[in-house]
């Protein structure tokens, strides 16, 4: 009994700390469903008396949020798939093909991944203007496909480096060419790792800010992150509108989180220390 009593303070302390982490989400959710008059009368900390959805609705219409969501899904989805394909191709050559100088090739990709986007942003902005890709979703898709593939290449290379050789040898003897071995054997067997990569690429791209901010200036092309960030920067919104914006920004992230929680935590660990 006494040991049990001693144990609870630790649990309580951690629960309070965890509550502190999610309190911002709760305050936002509570205030997003308050009417402006209720907000100004009772302040941000009171509980809502009713369920007022006009703030959310007017914000949605004002920024054409459906379009922003579509852009974010389109860009992040395309990047996830394309970057996974590029990573698989690279890692196939490095991990299974064991091409000459692969350590250097790998180092090249790592280095490219380490470069801060600040050192690429102006030339990318300038070059995309030259080739007519500026302010297109395609430009952002291309750039992030390459950036994410750098990470995918070195995660997958180490996984494929340990791929059982016998399976590949057997398939080769049966007459499969390299391309068939890749798609019929290596990709299906590596599906769990590729799945982690897809989730990560999607979320990372969804959350990107600097490059989309520079590249996507027209309203029709902006992502959720950029649209909200730019609005906030202009400080045009009142408190209820801000909360509506924040809630609509938080919701997709929380949905991903709940759906992919296992993949995320497992993937983070795999990515950091494999």
């Amino acid at each position, binding site marked *: 009994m006494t040991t049990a009593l001693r144990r609870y303070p630790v649990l309580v302390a951690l629960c309070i700390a965890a509550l502190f982490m999610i309190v911002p989400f709760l305050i936002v959710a509570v205030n997003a469903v308050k009417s402006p008059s209720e907000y100004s009368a009772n302040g*941000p900390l009171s509980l809502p008396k009713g369920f007022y959805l006009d703030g959310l609705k007017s914000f949605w219409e004002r920024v054409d949020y459906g379009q922003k969501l579509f852009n974010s899904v389109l860009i992040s989805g395309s990047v996830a798939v394309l970057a996974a394909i590029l990573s698989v191709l690279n890692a196939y050559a490095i991990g299974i093909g064991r091409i000459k100088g692969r350590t250097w090739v790998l180092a090249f990709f790592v280095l490219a991944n380490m470069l801060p986007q600040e050192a690429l942003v*102006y*030339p990318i902005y300038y070059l995309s203007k030259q080739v007519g890709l500026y302010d297109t979703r395609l430009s952002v898709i291309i750039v992030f496909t390459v950036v994410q593939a750098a990470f995918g290449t070195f995660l997958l290379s180490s996984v494929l480096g340990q791929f059982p050789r016998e399976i590949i040898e057997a398939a080769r003897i049966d007459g499969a060419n390299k391309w068939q071995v890749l798609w019929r054997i290596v990709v299906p067997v590596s599906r769990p790792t590729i799945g982690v990569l897809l989730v990560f690429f999607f979320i990372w791209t969804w959350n990107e800010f600097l490059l989309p901010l520079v590249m996507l200036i027209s309203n029709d092309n902006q992502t959720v992150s950029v649209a909200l960030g730019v609005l906030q920067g202009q400080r045009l919104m009142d408190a209820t509108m801000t909360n509506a914006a924040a809630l609509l920004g938080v919701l997709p992230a929380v949905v991903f989180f709940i759906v992919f929680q296992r993949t995320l935590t497992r993937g983070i660990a795999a990515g950091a220390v494999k």
Partner: protein
Amino acid sequence: MTVTVERGARAVAKHQHAGPRRPRTRDSYALFLLPGFLAFLAVIIVPFLMNTGVSFTEWQGIGSPKWTGLANYRELLDDSEFWASFRHSMFMVVAMAAVPTMIGLVLAAALFDYIAKHFGSKWAAVLRACFYLPQVLPIAVAGIVWSWILAPDNGSLNELLKAIGLSSWQQDWLGDPDLALYSVMGVMVWVQIGFPLVVFMAGLQRVDPLLYEAAELDGAGWWRRFWHITLPQIRPEIYVVLTWCTIAALKVFGAVYVLTKGGPGGATDVPSYFSFSTFFEKTQVGYGAAISTVLTVIILLLSLIGLKLQTRAEDAEEGVRA
């Protein structure tokens, strides 16, 4: 993250000696590398070289750049704004790497070695999820949430202080030049904590539970177990997290853009925001390129140091095992 490469390369190297290979077929695999290589050239290497080249010029973004050699770099040395932005970077390293790593260590150990053991792994998983949640949020959204919470009038934090009778503690958290940097730091700690926590908890799973049991039987308290088992056992993870978070801290942009735009009066300016505003607001492209080139050099150096520390930690660890 960097460990992956190191281990990957090493695993690959080990395999090379493992058995006979047919060298004839080996190099045609290089064709699979071609799309990746070309894409990298176009999106990363060429822009990076251009940026470096531009940093030796004076250029407004239109017309042709004028070669000025090292003039931009010489100007940087005397630019107090530049030095201030790097000083703020150091504060960000504290907020995004040092503090989250320390808090993450204690939390991970508490969740793993205490909560999971005495209350079940379900509690540990739920608590871990709460701490990790801010990590999945787009930084722009986190910025909106916090700039509203920290607002001077009607902001939740100030309202809360009033509600508990501490009205005198109310502040203009993001608008006061003396406070703004600390407020941004506080937000970044909140954003960042989940990452080390998750990595450390994963790392702890490979620690032999017998170590803890033996220590507990010998009467070692929680803190002694933490110092003598947890810390040494997950040292590789600590290096990874520190390197990774330090780089993230040096690159921080979105949070500063949304929370303060570098203000008030440059009090929260950081190199990436400084280069961004030099590129696109002041259109001094050559100067902006010089700032981002310096930032790149620093980040690459830090990555190398981090990689070195990790491999040394791993080698030491393998030495102990052998």
